[in-house]
């Protein structure tokens, strides 16, 4: 394996670690719920269930806000 290939592998591993860390930090609350639902087969409380659509709509409101005009 030449130096370029080794560096490329190292970069790939680093990126994977970065992504895993980001996923844990940013979507942790959702993943925790998925773990409880799928792995532990626990039901969410009614309050937790009710909170999910609220968070989904909050994120959607940011995404759906009108975009500024096309920039040059």
């Amino acid at each position, binding site marked *: 394996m030449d130096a370029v290939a080794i560096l490329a592998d190292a970069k790939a591993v680093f990126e994977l670690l*970065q*992504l895993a860390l*980001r996923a844990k930090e940013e979507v942790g609350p*959702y993943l925790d719920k*998925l773990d409880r639902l799928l792995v532990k*087969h626990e039901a969410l409380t009614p309050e937790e269930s009710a909170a*999910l659509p609220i968070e989904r*709509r909050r994120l959607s409101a940011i995404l759906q*806000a009108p975009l500024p005009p096309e920039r040059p």
Partner: protein
Amino acid sequence: MKLCFLALLLLPLLAVGGCAPFNSIGGAISTAAGFSISQSQIDIAESTYGSLAVFEVEYRCRYDNSQAGCVDPRTGAKIQQNDCRAGQGPSLANGFCAQRAVVVRLQQSDKVAQDALDKVQSDFAACKGNAADPTCSGLVAAYNTASTALIAATALATQYGFGSK
């Protein structure tokens, strides 16, 4: 790698979309289509889509960070815009080069997914209280529509490689 992560996200969607019998947590409704639907399944769809939406929002904020919610959840700092305007070029430090056309496609797929999830939840609630339609024919249609919408949204996110830095 990012595809691996998104594939992990997709698994529960496929579990929902695959119409496989689930458990009876949360009071599952047995449908005429031969499978049951429970509040837990709807929660899985909500949770999984929420995971995806975090990255969709980040992409939008990379293009236009004027929204108050365009903040990095780890630091609370404003997400850096990186729209690759002519003469400025993309900044490697700011991550990927966001494109308006992609944001528009994300908005479209998000709208379909949001409407579909809301329809499933409302039909589920209506079905539980409707003795005249114990097999919940409307819910099955809403459920299948939502499964399709969520898988499509995930595929779009995969195509544009969310989560990459």
